[in-house]
Structure formats: C-alpha cells, structure tokens
C-alpha cells in the first residue's frame, strides 16, 4: 500500500519469485559445496598422481564456473530485482535493516569470483599448492556468503528478539540460524556431488568414470544423511504456528513435504546403486534423475519454509500483502483506501464499489492469488461462494485460515472487496436475500455455505458423509481437525453446529 502493486493477474508475482529463486537456490548451494568438491577432487588426483582425475577436475571447474558465476550470480541479482518489484515494502525492510550484512556478503562475492577465475584459468599453470589454497579461499568465501545470507533469510521466518529490540544481531542470529546453516551446508555438499554426477556421466574413460562416480556418490550419501538430523533440528526451532504449518496444517505444505520425502528416497536409492552396486550403470539419464530428485528435495524444503511463514513475509511483523501488523488497527479505523498511497479510489461510494474493490483486491489479495492463473486462482477458490458467505468469510479470514492475513479496512471496504470478487470476477449477484421465515429455517444451509464450501463443494461433503448418521455428523463438527489435519476446527456455537449437522444430514435425504 506504500508502494504500487505490479499487477499481472494471470501470472502472479509469487510465481515469478519462485521461478527465479528455484534456479538460484539450486545453483547457489552448488556454488558453496562445489568449491570443496573441487579442492578434494584435485587433491585426490594429486595424491594418487592420477592425471585423468586432475583433468576431470579441471573440466568440472569450467562447468562450475559457467554455472555459478553466470547463472548463479545473475539469478542472485534477479531475486533482488523480483522481490523489489513484487514485495518492495518487505525488500526495503531487509535492505535497510541488514544493509551492512548485504555489504559484507558482497565482499565475499568479490573474493569468490576472483578465486574461481584464478582457480580455473590458472589450472595447471600455477603450482599445485598455491592452486589448492586458491580453491580453499573460494570455498571459505562461498561458505561465508551462505553464512550471511542464511542469517537474513532465516530472519524472515524466525525474527525472534528482533521484533522487540530491532537489533541487527538479534535478527541475524535468529532462532533458526544455526540449524538452518548446518542444514544448508550439508545440502550444498550434497548438491556438489549430485552435479558431479552430471559431469561424470559424460566421461568416456570407464575407469575414471567408475572412480569419480563412487567418489561423488560418497559425497551425496554422507552429506544427505548428515542433513536429515539438521532438518529436524531446524523444524524444532520454528515457532508453534509456523511448525504446525510446516507439519502439514496447510494442504499445499503437506503435498510439498510428501514430494520431499519421495524424492529423498529416490535419491538415496539412485545414489546407492551408483555407489555400491554398479557404478557402471551410471549414465546421463541416471544423473538427470538424481539431479531432479535432489532439486525436488531441496525445493520442497524451501517451499515448506516459505509457506510456513504465511501469512507473513517477515514473521509477526509484515504480512504477505505488505501490511505491517502494528498498522492494522489504524487501517481498520481510518479505512484502507485512505491509508494506502497507490490506489485509484480514495473512498468507497455507491457508485465506485467495484473499482474500490479492485483496488483492495490488488493490494490485499493479489499478493498470493492470481485471477484465472495456475497459482491460487481466486476465481476457483471462491467459486462455491455467494456474496453473503464471502462477505462473512473475509471478516474472519485469518481466524478461519491462519495462513491468510486478516482483512485490513472498514466495513464498506469489505463489502467493496466481496462485491468485486463476486460481481467483477464471477459476474454473480451481490444482493442479500431477504430474511424470510424460510430463510431463517435455512440457517444451517447458510452456515454451511459460509464455512464449509470454501474448501469442498456440497457434493463432496454429501459423498463423504453418505454412510454417516446424524450423530456422527454432529460429532465430526466438534472434531474437524482430527478428521483431517488441514481442516480448521469449527468455532461456531453448539446451536449453530446442530443447524449445520441438520443441513448436512438432509443432503443425504435424512430427516432432521
């Protein structure tokens, strides 16, 4: 609201952030672990006096340089560009609070590029001892980069004491700093081995291929096994709300976690085969399979971390839609449109309801919801609702689904938003039905539509409860979270639960 919203309704800014970050994450971790891999591979070659291994290391160094300096470096700048476009308010907070953290990281970045250039271009011409020292300098600088970035990225999920004191060091050495650093360190070593599979797959010398495949497989397996306890430690440092999200309270996170698990298993299996059973089976498809598994494994970790932060960008401080938590009350009091800078309408009137609603939608919903896009399509998510149920839902949105930020604004602005979604997007009517005596009797239906159809259609509920009796339905309304951990408990009164139970039971033709 302080900044304009870069509005790409069909794509969504989040998708673009994800696209660039995913590429960057895979390469930047490789850039750390790969440095150590190069040094160790070179030393192995020198110790065994094996020219083929040294030659392999040199070719791998070229691949490494082209991958990390170009793709890694530019996508790193790319993340900065895209987060500033999509979430300028939070980016500004990160920049202003941690400017000297970023600046320090930049120094390591300088050392890294100089080191990798010297390492690659002087491979073979420099005396081997100096050359290895250069390799070590590279690795240390790259790891220190990780050290710094890890502090700032972790701050976003677990800002800890910073929320109270605003101190650089409190934010930097936040509660998840150490487990996250260890986890990322091992993951980066693992990726170094996985990327090496790619290079080894292209080797024609069978002896060398076998030697380097085994060498790389040991890397992957040992660092992967070391990463697992760190991952658990990391989870244990998360605040309760974030942990419950990470442990599957959100359906999307649960799916991400499952993918993470499957791919982890697949990766171990693939690596074990390469390591123990038959290094000769190593081929390009195998290396791509292992690479893809490793990507999905790390991807699911990053996705879970990002998703666990919801509804905040910086936990407990600023919401995903750039509204600062402590400003919320003031915005509710004076109205969102009057508090925001970048809106076309300054207040809601009879005539501008849809235009005002669109402004509010762009600022408060679009940060996570596309309109007709793949990611969190608002049209699909609200298709079961009508105007009254949506209006009611928006009022309690954060209570019903913790991972969505509360609505910020006054009563008429909430109506404008609901009207925009219903009429502007769905083309539905925005009239309230009159409260006739029949309608009062239909209270159960109304409640059902307000609270249940957000996630499942009437038809689905009907099918799921087909064999249930009235008593079980009533019981389930007290135990929704036990039925399915992603379902929030119903917080209505006992009387309301009776009405909803009546309604659901009536769906199967049961008498009330």
């Amino acid at each position, binding site marked *: 609201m*302080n*900044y*304009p*919203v*870069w*509005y*790409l309704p069909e794509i969504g800014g989040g998708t*673009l952030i994800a696209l*660039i970050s995913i590429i960057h994450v895979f390469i930047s971790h490789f850039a750390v672990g790969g440095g150590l891999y190069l040094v160790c591979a070179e030393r192995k070659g020198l110790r065994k006096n094996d020219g083929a291994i040294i030659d392999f290391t040199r070719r791998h160094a070229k691949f490494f340089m082209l991958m990390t*300096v*170009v*793709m890694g*470096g*530019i*996508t790193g*700048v*790319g993340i*900065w*560009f*895209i987060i*500033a*476009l999509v979430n*300028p*308010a939070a*980016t*500004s*907070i990160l*920049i*202003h*609070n*941690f*400017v*000297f953290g*970023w*600046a*320090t990281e*930049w*120094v*390591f*970045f*300088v*050392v890294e*590029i*100089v*080191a990798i*250039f*010297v390492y690659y*271009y*002087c491979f*073979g*011409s*420099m*005396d081997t001892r100096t050359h290895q020292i250069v390799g070590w*300098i590279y690795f240390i600088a790259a790891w220190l980069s990780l050290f710094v970035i890890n502090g700032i990225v972790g701050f976003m999920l677990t800002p800890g004491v910073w929320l109270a004191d*605003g101190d*650089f*060091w409190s934010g930097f050495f936040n509660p998840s700093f150490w487990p996250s650093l260890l986890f990322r360190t091992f993951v980066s070593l693992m990726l170094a081995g996985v990327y090496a599979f790619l290079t080894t797959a292209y080797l024609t010398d069978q002896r060398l291929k076998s030697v380097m495949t085994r060498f790389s497989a040991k890397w992957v397996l040992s660092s992967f096994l070391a990463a697992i306890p760190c991952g658990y430690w990391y989870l244990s440092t998360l605040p309760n709300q974030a942990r419950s999200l990470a442990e599957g309270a959100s359906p999307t996170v649960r799916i991400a976690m499952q993918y993470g698990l499957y791919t982890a298993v697949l990766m171990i299996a693939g690596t074990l085969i390469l390591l123990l059973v038959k290094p000769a089976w190593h081929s390009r498809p195998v290396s791509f399979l292992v690479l893809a598994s490793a990507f999905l494994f790390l991807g699911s970790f990053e996705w879970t971390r990002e998703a666990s932060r919801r509804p905040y960008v910086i936990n407990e401080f600023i919401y995903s839609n750039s509204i600062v938590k402590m400003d919320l009350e003031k915005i509710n009091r004076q109205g969102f449109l009057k508090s925001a*800078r*970048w809106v076309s309408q300054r207040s809601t009137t009879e005539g501008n309801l849809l235009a005002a609603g669109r402004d509010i939608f*762009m600022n408060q919903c679009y940060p996570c919801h596309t309109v007709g896009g793949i990611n969190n399509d608002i049209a699909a998510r609200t298709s079961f609702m009508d105007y009254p149920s949506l209006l009611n839902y928006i009022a309690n949105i954060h209570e019903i689904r913790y991972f969505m930020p509360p609505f910020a604004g006054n009563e008429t602005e909430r109506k404008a938003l609901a009207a925009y979604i219903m009429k502007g997007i769905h083309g539905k009517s925005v009239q309230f039905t009159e409260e006739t005596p029949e309608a009062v009797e239909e209270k159960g239906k109304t409640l059902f539509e307000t609270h249940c159809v957000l996630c499942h259609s009437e038809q689905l509920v009907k099918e799921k409860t087909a064999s249930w009796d009235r008593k079980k339905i009533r019981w389930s309304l007290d135990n929704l979270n036990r039925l399915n951990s992603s379902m929030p408990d119903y917080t209505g009164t006992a009387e309301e639960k009776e009405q909803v139970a009546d309604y659901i039971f009536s769906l199967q033709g049961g008498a009330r």
Partner: protein
Amino acid sequence: MNTLIPAPDAIPVSWGYFKFLLMLTFPLHLILMNSMLGSAAIALYACLKGDETSKRLAYELAKVIPFLIAFAVNLGVAALLFLQVLYGHFFYTSSIVMGAYWIAVIPLVLVAYYSAYLFDFKFSSLGKGAVALVSLSLFIFLGIAFLFSNNITFMLDPEAWNVYFAKPAGTSLNLGDPVLLPRYLHFIVGGIAVGGLFVALVGKMKRKMASDVRAAAENIGMKVFTFFTGVQVASGFWFLLSLPQDVIRLFTGGDALATLIFIAGFLLALVVLAAGISRKVYAIAVLVVPLVYIMSFMRDSVRSGYLKPHFSPESLQVLPQYSPMFLFFFVLVAGIAPVVWMLRKALGSLPQAEEER
C-alpha cells in the same frame, strides 16, 4: 508534496556513510561497464574488418569481456545496494512502474553473458557466428543501458508515475521525458569512449600479445577514445541543457559546489581530449578515473536537484547501530588481502597459461 512517494525506512548509520559508499562504488561500476561496452563494440568492429590482426585482436577482447561483465555486475550490486538504502522508495516505485521491462534486464544479461562466453571459448570455430554473438552481447548491453536510463529518469520524476494507473502491469517507459534521450546518449557515448581507452590499455599492457595486435589495439582504442570523447563533450551540453531550469541553475552558480564540479569536469574533459589527440595512453588512463568520479558527482547533483522538492537523504530517520558497519569495513579490508594475493600469484603464473591456450 506528491502523495504517491512512499515513506522511506530508517537507516542504521548517518546518511553520509551511504553517500560515500555509493559515490565510491558507482564510478567503479561505470568504468567496468564502459570497458565492457567499448570492448564489445571494438570486438565487433574487428570481427567485421576481418583481417588477420583484427581477428586476433577480437579474440584478445573476447577473452577479456566475460571478466568485465563479472566485475561490472559485481560492482553494480554494491552501488545498487547503497542506492536503495538512500533512494529505495523512489527506485522501487519507478522500477514497478516499468516492471515488465525492468525484470527483462535479468534474462537479457544472462543471454549477453553466455554469448560473451561462447564468443570467447568457441572463438576459433565460430566463423561468421562470431559477429552474431558479439553483436548480440553488444546490442543487449545497449538495450539494458536504455532500460536503466528509463528507470533512473523515472525515479527522479514522481509526477511521471501516474502512468502506472493506466498500465499497472508495468509496461510503461519514460519515453515522454525530454531528458531521456540526451541522458542515454551521454552515457553510451561516454561508455564507448572509456571502452576505447580500455582497449588501448590492453594493447599497451599485455606484453604477451603479438606486437601487431598490440599496435592495432592501441591504435583503434585511441581513435575511438578521442572521437567519442569529442562527441561526448557535445552530448554533455545537450544533456545539461535538456535538464529542468532548476537543475541547470545548480551548475551555473546556483550551487557553489555543483558549479565548481562542473567547471572542473569540463576542464578535465578538455585536457583528456587533448591527451587523446596526442595519444598519451597512460596519462589519459590516470586522468579518466578522476574524470569519471567528477562526472558521477555531477550526476549526483542532478539527482539532488530533481528530488529537492520531495526528499533529501538528510531527512532519513537514523536508528543508530554502528557495529555492523564496522564489521563490514573490517571484512572489506580483510577481503582485499586474499584478492591481492591471488591476483599476484595468478599474474605470476599466467605466461604459461597463455602458451598453453
């Protein structure tokens, strides 16, 4: 007061430190970027010319361009960081107003960067493809510079931000601004001039290169430098005169320091031009560095002049915490040591590397 200007965030140390760091790093970024642009332009010319010496000169430049890109980007990161600390609320906004174009910078740099590497690593087998690759890099550089000129002029002119409401997808450019074209031209022409100097320096300093290639580098580099510096003086005046009256007045006595900088810059430019005509490569190199700094200070005065009605960094709230800055300075000094050590070792071992290639 323009109501669209976002509220800035507080800074941890006095604004002067950030201004110092910005003005320290930005000119270095300019010099590298200029060298990159000029080297690509001259490499293209040499490829097109096609005689044996020119081809070898093109290859020598092909080897250098990826390094120049790497360090131009690297120093750009530092400058952009300090820019965002002081002017982020302007810069983020202008970036969003042209968001669709702005994000294109990233894939464009990637393509230019990889073409530069292909141009280097595959040079001998490229044939006519060499012209295509180096042209691709060069035109992308020119395009990116145009996008940067758009963003920076947008950033300085909050009145122009209203175009956002008609195009919230960020598909606006600042084409209506009369300063855009002269500003862009000034940076491009100056860039190619400094790039010419860089090529001449490569010719002077790389003793391992064949003498005809070295002579060609120095010759063409100096020609480019002198010609484009001449054009640059003229384009500079066009740029100056296209600025708003309030801003021009800063350099004509309105602001003593800005006027002094302007006069010093103009005189130094004339000296450099004269040195270019008499082909004193090292003398020019020594003079061009302060010249780029002076021009950057002028550019900073222009920025201050534009933003004066809206904002000045002095007004930023400071929530003091100095320890992270001290850590940064310590790491910076400590980081220079291994860099110098590695470069010395590398230069010591390079002759062999050269023969091997």
